[in-house]
């Protein structure tokens, strides 16, 4: 399908919002995640369900995404918005969409690094104003210039890639043979291991890892929905926590 410039610009706007402080800081925890990014992109392009499904797939790769102290792996948001847009526009299946969105997210990290660097300039400006006694300039400098910068640096690249990207992707797909598309599917099936492993690094340990295997079995062998698996998980977690508590253990298995 054709992506109009207005649609591309709307997607660019939401990409900006996902990194902005507006809509409260919760924006980072919501609009920034590919699940929601895919859904919103789907709404803009007229196919919310397909967008949400593609976003959900991309999101698994970034499940272990943690932004701490200014360092981060890739840009889940860029992968989510732009990846979903390209996938819908070029009619890609979910694994292919996952495979193409990862490089996009990795390249977009440059935007984040540039923003973090240029923002240093504003704090010196604020220092000077406070030194002069203009403390009321603090909110202005904290909000307006960094947000103008962020808008320029996020809206423009995302809009352009969404607008011109489908042509490039379609051209690429015309050259590729079914065998190569199979390779894309394999890559798409392998990349989620990274997101899951990144998250397991944080919460997985000798005590919890057997439950990881249990989760796999519930899913692969018993074909349970995630929501059922999580209810079983809650029951087990509460039981074990209660047993530890009764034994006077102050916690610390983790």
């Amino acid at each position, binding site marked *: 399908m054709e992506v109009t410039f207005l649609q591309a610009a709307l997607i660019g706007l939401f990409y900006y919002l996902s990194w902005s402080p507006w809509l409260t800081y919760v924006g980072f925890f919501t609009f920034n995640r590919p699940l929601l990014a895919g859904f919103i992109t789907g709404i803009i392009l007229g196919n919310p369900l397909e967008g949400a499904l593609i976003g959900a797939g991309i999101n698994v790769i970034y499940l272990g995404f943690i932004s701490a102290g200014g360092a981060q792996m890739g840009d889940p948001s860029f992968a989510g918005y732009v990846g979903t847009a390209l996938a819908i526009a070029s009619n890609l299946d979910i694994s292919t969409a996952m495979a193409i969105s990862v490089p996009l997210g990795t390249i977009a990290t440059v935007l984040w690094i540039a923003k973090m660097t240029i923002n240093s300039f504003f704090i010196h400006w*604020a220092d000077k104003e406070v030194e002069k006694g203009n403390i009321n300039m603090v909110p202005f400098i904290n909000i307006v210039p960094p947000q103008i910068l962020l808008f320029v640096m996020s809206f423009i690249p995302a809009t352009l890639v969404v607008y011109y990207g489908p042509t490039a992707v379609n051209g690429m797909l015309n050259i590729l043979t079914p065998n190569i598309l199979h390779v894309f599917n394999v890559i798409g099936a*392998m990349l989620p291991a990274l997101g899951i492993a990144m998250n397991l690094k944080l919460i997985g340990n000798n005590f919890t890892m057997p439950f990881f295997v249990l989760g796999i079995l519930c899913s692969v062998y018993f074909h349970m929905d*995630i929501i059922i698996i999580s209810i079983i998980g809650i029951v087990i977690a509460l039981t074990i926590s209660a047993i530890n508590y009764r034994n006077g253990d102050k916690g610390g298995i983790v």
Partner: protein
Amino acid sequence: MKDINLSKKDVRKSWFNWFMFAQSSYNYERLQALAFAHSMLPIIKKLYPKDKAQQKSGITRHMSFFNTEPICGSVIHGVTVAMEEERAKGQPITDEAFDGIKTGLMGPLAGVGDTLTQGVITPIMLAICIGITNNNNIAGPIIFLLAQFMVMTGISYNMWFNGYKYGRKAVEEIMSGGKINRVIEAASLLGTMVMGGLVGRFIPLKFYLNFNLGGNSTFNLQYDLLDKLMPGLIPLVLTLAVLHYVKKGTSPIKLMGALILFGIITGCMGIF
């Protein structure tokens, strides 16, 4: 000795400034320093209504390097607000005391906060909502949006006001009472199991290889052996292998590259 008390409205205004703009001017040099000063502005102005010099030094002392997890870390701001109030009333609280509390707490709270919000709560909610979405149900992203909004706003607001109310004691209790460990421990167990559930859904790797046993009979490694022994073994081994390298400190970007390369090789050879 002055008697200026902060109203709930002042404290809420201060919280709102942080909650809205904590990451607005996030930068490599002093990270959230400017946002911290921004959040203290309503407090300083209220406590020193006419004293320009005090206002200036008040903001200056909150312009130093600051970085924590914005949601859970807001307990530090609550404590700082309480300290500012006490100082304005005449308590001998030095600038060093502010620096000490802020820098002393920001590290541990960043650790606990990142684990809790980005490492446990968000992935579990995502996993559940991804599961809902995968059943072709559009409610997944919508539930995620609403749930995240309520949970994150609730934690931030409560942390701030409890910090303000109980001061340093609150933080020490949260950090050392074992309560937080218990929550993280139970949530980690749940999270790990849910991650296992995602493996089944999103890593549908199966061996394609068939071995000809002569005549018409073929042996398929996947259906004839692995599925009978341990379904999901390949995804499990792949995830554990990646986890091994993640723990060894290999950068995620390199691992992504390696996985893509591995996918190209095994995909071309028809192994998967």
